[in-house]
């Protein structure tokens, strides 16, 4: 825990990013991709190398076509295009099946970072609202929250599908501020991405809190950074006790 500002007050709300902030994203993504690769190898004889190459091409095409929108992250679109690139033309049933396989295995490998639940419990018992501002489509992001058993803590959710644009666009954050109906100066924003989470927070005068991981340096201008949620929790507890 570094850069502790002096004379800080408890926030009235905290906005959290979801992917890779509350749980580690890469192992889950790898588990999802491995499951799809295994399925394609087992059922259609497509090697993982060929699948990954086509998937990468498909994702780049879709991202460049759709820009910073929620659907630019759609695994369903990626898999549909991947199958086309693999020479299967349109295969709606298989594309849906691959998407389901991806997300199921993604979630099976997903574990919240230690300390997230105690932190959320502390925030709720302290009367602090919790918001989630995240990219991607609402359906899967809501499924994640239900699966992690976090939905009971959440006061407000904004996905880029609802906002019409991905972060670092400001709309997802301004939408969250509207829903929270609180002044920006009393809200903290917690995220792991300098560009997507910290820059909009600084722009909107939110109190920016950076979730650092091993080997990442704190971005400039960030008010507070932490590595483990227990650190953030004890910091907030200290703030509360000093009030």
């Amino acid at each position, binding site marked *: 825990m570094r850069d502790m500002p002096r004379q800080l007050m408890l926030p009235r709300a905290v906005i959290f990013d979801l992917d890779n902030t509350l749980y580690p994203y890469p192992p889950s993504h790898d588990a999802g991709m491995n499951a799809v690769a295994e399925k394609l190898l087992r059922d259609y004889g497509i090697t993982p190398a060929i699948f990954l190459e086509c998937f990468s091409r498909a994702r780049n095409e879709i991202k460049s076509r759709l820009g910073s929108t929620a659907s630019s992250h759609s695994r369903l679109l990626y898999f549909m295009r991947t199958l086309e690139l693999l020479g299967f033309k349109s295969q709606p049933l298989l594309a849906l099946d691959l998407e*389901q396989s991806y997300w*199921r295995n993604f*979630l*099976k490998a997903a574990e919240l970072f230690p300390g997230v639940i105690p932190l959320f419990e502390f925030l709720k018992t302290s009367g602090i609202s919790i918001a989630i501002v995240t990219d991607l489509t609402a359906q899967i992001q809501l*499924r994640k929250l239900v*699966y*992690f*058993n976090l939905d009971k803590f959440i006061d407000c959710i904004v996905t880029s599908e609802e906002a019409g644009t991905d972060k670092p666009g400001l709309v997802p954050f301004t939408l969250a501020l509207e829903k929270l109906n609180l002044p920006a100066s009393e809200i903290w924003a917690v995220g792991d991405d300098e560009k997507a989470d910290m820059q909009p927070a600084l722009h909107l005068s939110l109190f920016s809190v950076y979730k650092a991981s091993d080997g990442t340096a704190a971005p400039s201008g960030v008010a507070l950074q932490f590595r483990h949620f227990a650190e953030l929790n004890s910091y907030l507890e200290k703030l509360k006790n000093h009030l």
Partner: protein
Amino acid sequence: MVLKEDLLKPLFLGGLAAKIILALFLAPAPQIDWFIPFMDAFWKHPSITPWDYVFQNSAAFPYGITMFVTLLPCTFADFLLAQLFGGGHLSGHGITFTLILADVWLYLLLCLLLPGKYDKILRAYWLSPISLVGIYWVGQLDTIPVCFLFSALLALQQRKAGLSGFLLAAACSAKLSMAAVLPFFLIYLFLTPRLRNVGKDFLLGLTGGMLVLLIAPLFSGGYRMMVLGTPEMLRVFDLHIQMGNLSLYLTPVIYGLGLYFAWRIRRMTFDLFYTILGLSFFLLVFSTPAPPGWYLWLVPFITIFQVNAANARHWRLLFLFSACVSLAQILFWPGAAIPLLGISLHSFFPDITRAMPVQLHSIWISGLFFLGAVVYLSMLRENVYRSKAYITWRRPMGIAVAGDSGTGKDRLARTLAGMFGQESIAHISGDDYHLWDRFGVMWQSFTHLHPGANNLQQFAKDVTDMFCNKSIACREYDHATGRFNPPLMRHGNDVIIVSGLHSLMNKSLRDKYDISIYLDMDETLRRWFKCRRDCLERGHELEKVLASIERRMSDAEQFIHPQRDHADIIFSLYPVTQLHMGTFDAGSLQLGLHAELRGAHFSSMLVRHLTGLCGMRVDVRFTEDLDTITLTIEGELVREDTAFIASRLFPDILELLALQPRWAGGMDGVMQLIVLSYFTDKLESKQL
């Protein structure tokens, strides 16, 4: 990762530093008198039969090959240092550092056996007074065979049965008295139906290990003298009642009773197994004037009991017991010298104790025995009588499946049997109790649904007998031929599944079931399934099947449907897609499931997993009296999801299921999960 962090905690590092200091400064009596000279002689005259050296004291090294091999690396380093810097004799630090490594090894084994409880294990084991005194003050080597024993347990937990058998042989080789645990392993592996195949691999590993580690060294005369002739072997006869010229040896009787207790429990989970093992060690240690090393056997078991302790009172009780045992070790057994200061405390405390009146000794020993008995009874109550496995298998678990014809009773019975394991199941089908076969003329007047067309009295008697573990002779109705097969003997088992049209009709039978399930079904779907089964599988004509359904309707309403009111769980399948009678292609058929659960707690986690993980749609409703929960579930579930959700939500009861449960996908899988959830709930309430 978390374990790595625990190894860097101040408590672990501080404890390790304290142990290293104790090892450097203390020289315990048995090590100076016996073990160090033995290893010293070996390194000066290496041989494959080190026991053959002639010693004045035949008790110099009453241990086998694995103990000897474990001591080699550190004593070799000690020997080299002695050759370079010392006077040519071992300092003894090679042995004490081996014991520190064994101490760490045992700590890590406990962490692996009880994952996620590292902090508690650290507090309970790492600074255990028995361990500190027994290893560093009294200088006993028993931590090493205990390490092999717990390595064998860990291998067994990880289903590496052959390795486990070999490691147990290694434990017995390290210290022959460890053989006392072998019958418990065999009882666990061969009386628990799900583990019998595992038991065969275990025996192979054990036999191989014994041939190499226990039989081969018997050719050494020194080994036979030191290991088999150790006075410790005769301690089991110390506790006895004199009856004229005869003696009643109590230790073998108590040990035998411990074995009988384990045999009576029969089906054990892994937790229950090592609990029974620990309790048996308690009996063995307390029923003999045990040497101090034997108390080290208790340390990991006391740690496990402390970690699993229901409350702080049990924790304190165990700590008090450990402290008293270690005090007894200090007071009654030769201690250590401090060579650096030239002080010998070998007989300092025992001399003080000897100077006291003998009655005081007796009072102290009696007090310790009393405390041990309290700990034993407390552990028996908390860890055995309240164990899920013990509660579950005290009597067979009964699951009844009732419902109208064609609602999938046999299918559900098979699905549940796949989950619990065929080796643990006894199945009684109501179809076997029809009075007449398919060609009986009486079917012109009766339907199968009418109680008068079934031998329900025999059905009730057979079910009752099965619950009393009696065998029954029962004929089997063959749906393919429509005839009865000759009667066969059937035996009771852990789980008795009773399926049939009238399974829930009789109140006395209903009281025997742990879970009563009634299968309902959307009427259109039921007709579709029944026509499909009877036409495709049993070769009947569609018109006749439909006519038979119509003819049965009034009997169904009168005799079958009322059983619904007596069920704990009511499953009702319904079609999500449109059905066409006459086309029996199930490829595009999508099913939804209504499940009514009576008297159960609501498992929101199950709903969360079905919704979040699988993307299913789940609607939850409560009745006004809050006693019934209705779930309406639609969507796709694959068997891997069922397996994952079961392992995630019901980890404690997986050991009560098959070794490799046959999980189902679709609504069959949902039914498995709901039954499992209800079963868990029932088990929790039984524990209370």
